[in-house]
């Protein structure tokens, strides 16, 4: 009996231990997690940053002052110490995010979240994300300074990781029950790949191939033009290109494969983009050049950005950094300011690969065959067996789609040629911008920059403004890469690159301002082929028209423009609709809603109901036009761009695409207006019955979600901010201005900045999301650009890192 009791209590004890020590489903290991000595309670603390720390790896003391926003101002004696400290300080506030984003880039999420992430990881491996990071590091090896800085940053992160007790590790590690693994140079390269994927992997090749096959060439050209009459390009229209001595690649005589592709990988967010602009001294109300930047991304907590000031005795730069990468990405120093928007181009192409036989060791190329190389991808999965995937590489790049992935034939596949796989040092250009003093320094800094291509806007205290569209761009033949190409035809390879000095750029243009908003880089006279990669057609025109509207501009004008919610898109369609739509058929209820949108001033403000009506109505109208696309269930297609759709609705109302194919009648644009409007009213009323009034704030329901599957408790919901994906204040439900910056090149420069988040990545910190309310309201924080290491009024804490002797 005694023994039975003993055994029972032993089993019970072990069972209790097991249950409380193990993560069960999404429930963290409860005992470990709730332990107030080491568990989550230890993360419920304020920022503890004041003090002195001795660390291995430093050569001289580094001082870090934190201001009221928890922005670190780092003062180091040399670059190595500076980047060491940047790593240390960033990890102090953003360690979990740094590791999570690079795990995501490398296709290693299954290791921490389990089976649910296998598909995601597999896609990342198929895209060759790690391969790209390896190539990038190889490319940087020659630059010993850059390698030293990367190593110093990595050492700094690891100095922090090694200092952590069980109790101190960030809460997300505790929730998911795993430990920080530390940093390496490869992780910085992976983070940059993550940005390249986000910003430079947009393409439509396979979808366009399907569209070409289904609708024919004539229709294709009608639906997908490369230029529009109203295009107001990044580089002003009157630019003289006569300095360009290289020529566009000639079109080879060859056939394109017209395969049917059922399913393609998810695409980056179509609104990934940004605004930036700079005005000359003459156009500025204060007489000092001014520059602004607001990158648009999917908003998350912790934010993608982290503000810092980085100083050595030689220079001092401030602005936003990317946790995991070195230096300031968008910011200013004593002499210049710079900012970036995405300069999207078609930098990802697909090639059809014909394997020699089922062993797939060789593929057809030219008159003979070339060998494939196999890369074995081991995807470790938490709580389950490791998944093995073999990805074959050709000289184009990885064969992403084959019979193991979305394909059906053992003898063919589709290989990807992508700028992200070409390597190149995309870190040093930013480090050199941080210390640039004038236009020449800026120009030289960005020269070697490969991807993701950016519109680098620039202004200097000397009075120059400029914008270079910088990246490595293949010199394509007219139409190259619009569709799937023949991987066995050498003429279909990228034939070379546009020489860097011929990248489109402008310096001190007559109009007194430079700007970019992801629109077409140039007009049709630029002598190289630029395909319409989904270029912006709205924000860019609002911005440029604004700067043409008067002579002088102030900081207040800049603020107003960044927060402008004028919906040019709606304003170009709705007046036509109001004129032509037959309202006789509307019920009284529908007529009420119709009157609401008729009285709209086209501003997407949070209090209005008209923006909600538009938000509901427009997609319904759009899909009535493109019902031919919706009907193709088993084929991957990308429907035409919004601008073209509105242009066709208003100028070709009787086009055959207006007809809804499944009805016996022949519809015109006018019919579509009524049909879609009736549906919109019905759906709005359903929404109203469930949720109350559809004012735009409630209806759009903007939120900033936590990086880890949007954990609601760590996210912020229903934010009071207007705008939509096509307004200058490009805030849709989850995607928008991830950082707003305005810099005046006075001496010293004065800067305003804010982002939707907070400096601390700890959901238990009051600095976790403390910028969000001001950001949503369109307010800015005046940033404390410290002239020297002397703590000034705004400093709330100081930390000293000293060498460990």
């Amino acid at each position, binding site marked *: 009996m005694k023994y039975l009791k003993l055994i029972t209590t032993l089993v019970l004890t072990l069972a209790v231990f097991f249950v409380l020590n193990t993560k069960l489903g999404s429930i963290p290991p409860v005992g470990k997690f709730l332990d107030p000595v080491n568990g989550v309670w230890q993360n419920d*603390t304020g920022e503890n940053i004041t003090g002195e720390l001795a660390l291995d790896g430093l050569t001289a003391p580094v001082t870090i002052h934190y201001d009221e926003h928890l922005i670190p101002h780092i003062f180091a004696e040399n670059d190595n110490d500076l980047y060491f400290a940047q790593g240390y300080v960033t990890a102090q506030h953003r360690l979990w995010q740094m590791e999570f984003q690079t795990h995501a880039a490398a296709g290693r999420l299954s290791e921490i979240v389990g089976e649910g992430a296998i598909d995601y990881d597999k896609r990342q491996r198929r895209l060759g994300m790690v391969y790209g990071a390896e190539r990038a590091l190889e490319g940087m090896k020659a630059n010993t300074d850059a390698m030293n800085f990367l190593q110093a940053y990595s050492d700094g992160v690891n100095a922090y990781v090694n200092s952590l007790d069980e109790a101190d590790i960030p809460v997300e590690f505790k929730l998911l029950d795993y430990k920080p693994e530390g940093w390496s140079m490869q992780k910085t390269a992976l983070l940059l790949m993550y940005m390249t994927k986000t910003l430079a992997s947009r393409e439509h090749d396979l979808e366009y191939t399907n569209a070409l096959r289904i609708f024919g060439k004539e229709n294709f050209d009608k639906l997908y033009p490369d230029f529009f009459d109203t295009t107001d390009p990044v580089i002003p229209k009157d630019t003289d290109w006569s300095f360009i001595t290289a020529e566009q690649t000639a079109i080879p005589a060859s056939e394109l494969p017209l395969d049917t592709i059922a399913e393609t990988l998810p695409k980056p967010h179509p609104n990934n983009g940004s605004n930036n602009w700079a005005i000359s001294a003459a156009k500025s109300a204060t007489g000092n050049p001014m520059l602004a930047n607001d990158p648009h991304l999917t908003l998350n907590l912790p934010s993608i950005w982290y503000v810092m000031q980085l100083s050595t005795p030689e220079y001092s730069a401030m602005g936003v950094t990317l946790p995991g990468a070195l230096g300031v990405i968008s910011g200013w120093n004593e002499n210049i300011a710079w900012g970036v928007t995405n300069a999207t181009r078609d930098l990802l192409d697909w090639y059809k690969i014909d394997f020699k036989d089922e062993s797939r060791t060789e593929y057809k190329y030219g008159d003979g065959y070339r060998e494939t190389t196999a890369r074995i991808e081991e995807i470790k999965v938490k709580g389950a067996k490791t998944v093995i995937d073999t990805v074959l590489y050709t000289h184009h790049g990885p064969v992403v789609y084959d019979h193991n992935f979305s394909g059906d034939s053992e003898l063919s596949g589709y290989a990807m040629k992508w700028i992200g796989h070409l390597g190149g040092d995309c870190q040093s250009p930013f480090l050199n911008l941080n210390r640039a003093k004038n236009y020449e320094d800026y120009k030289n800094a960005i020269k070697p920059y490969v991807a993701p291509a950016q519109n680098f806007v620039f202004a200097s205290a000397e009075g120059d403004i400029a914008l270079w569209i910088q990246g490595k761009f293949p010199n394509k033949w007219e139409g190259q890469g619009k569709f799937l190409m023949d991987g066995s035809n050498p003429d279909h390879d990228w034939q070379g690159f546009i020489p860097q000095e011929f990248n489109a750029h402008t310096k001190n243009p007559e109009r007194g301002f430079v700007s970019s908003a992801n629109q077409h880089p140039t007009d049709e006279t630029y002598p190289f082929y630029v395909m319409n990669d989904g270029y912006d057609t709205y924000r860019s025109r609002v911005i440029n028209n604004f700067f043409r509207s008067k002579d002088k501009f102030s900081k207040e004008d800049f603020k107003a423009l960044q927060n402008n919610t004028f919906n040019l898109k709606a304003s170009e369609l709705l007046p036509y609709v109001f004129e032509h739509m037959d309202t006789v058929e509307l019920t009284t209820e529908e007529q009420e809603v119709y009157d609401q949108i008729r009285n709209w001033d086209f501003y997407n403000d949070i209090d209005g109901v008209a923006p909600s009506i538009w938000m509901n109505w427009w997609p319904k109208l759009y899909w009535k036009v493109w019902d031919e696309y919706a009907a193709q269930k088993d084929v991957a297609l990308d429907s035409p761009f919004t601008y073209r759709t509105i242009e066709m609705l208003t100028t070709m109302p009787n086009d055959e695409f207006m007809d809804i194919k499944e009805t016996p009648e022949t519809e015109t644009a006018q019919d579509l207006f009524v049909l879609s409007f009736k549906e919109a009213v019905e759906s709005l009323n359903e929404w109203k019955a469930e949720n109350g009034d559809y004012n735009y704030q409630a209806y759009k329901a903007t939120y900033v979600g936590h990086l880890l599957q949007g*954990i609601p408790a760590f996210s912020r919901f229903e934010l009071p901010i207007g705008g939509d994906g096509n307004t200058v204040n490009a805030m849709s439900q989850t995607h928008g201005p991830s950082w707003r910056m305005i810099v005046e090149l006075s001496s010293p420069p004065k800067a305003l900045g804010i982002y939707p988040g907070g400096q601390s990545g700890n959901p*238990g910190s009051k600095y976790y999301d403390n910028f969000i309310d001001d950001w949503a309201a369109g307010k800015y924080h005046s940033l404390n650009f410290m002239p020297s290491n002397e703590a000034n009024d705004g400093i709330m804490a100081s930390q000293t890192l000293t060498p460990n002797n």
Partner: protein
Amino acid sequence: MKAKLINFIVTIIIALILSQFLPWWSVMVAGFVSSLFFSLKKASVFFVPFLAIFFFWSVFAYVGASQNDFTLSKKIAELLPLGGNEYLLIFVTGVVGGLAAGVAALLGKQLSSLAK
């Protein structure tokens, strides 16, 4: 009564000391050890160490988090889900620690009675 008080205090002291070196299951060790040496009877075997650790964990949690206005605790209480009530989270924390200690104490009791 005295034995219960001694067990209660000893459990807390052992847990407090061990928690500096050991992970969360130090409270199980505390419950186990105090029951080996300060044996109790019937329901007290479980409930005295349970209450001791309930007290230790909930007070420890409360004191730390109250200085930060329960910023994170409220969010964790929403996530788990406990309706965003930080006091409920403190209660659950106490119960979890207490349960672990109480069960380990049952084992300690069985072992000590075996030795007699």
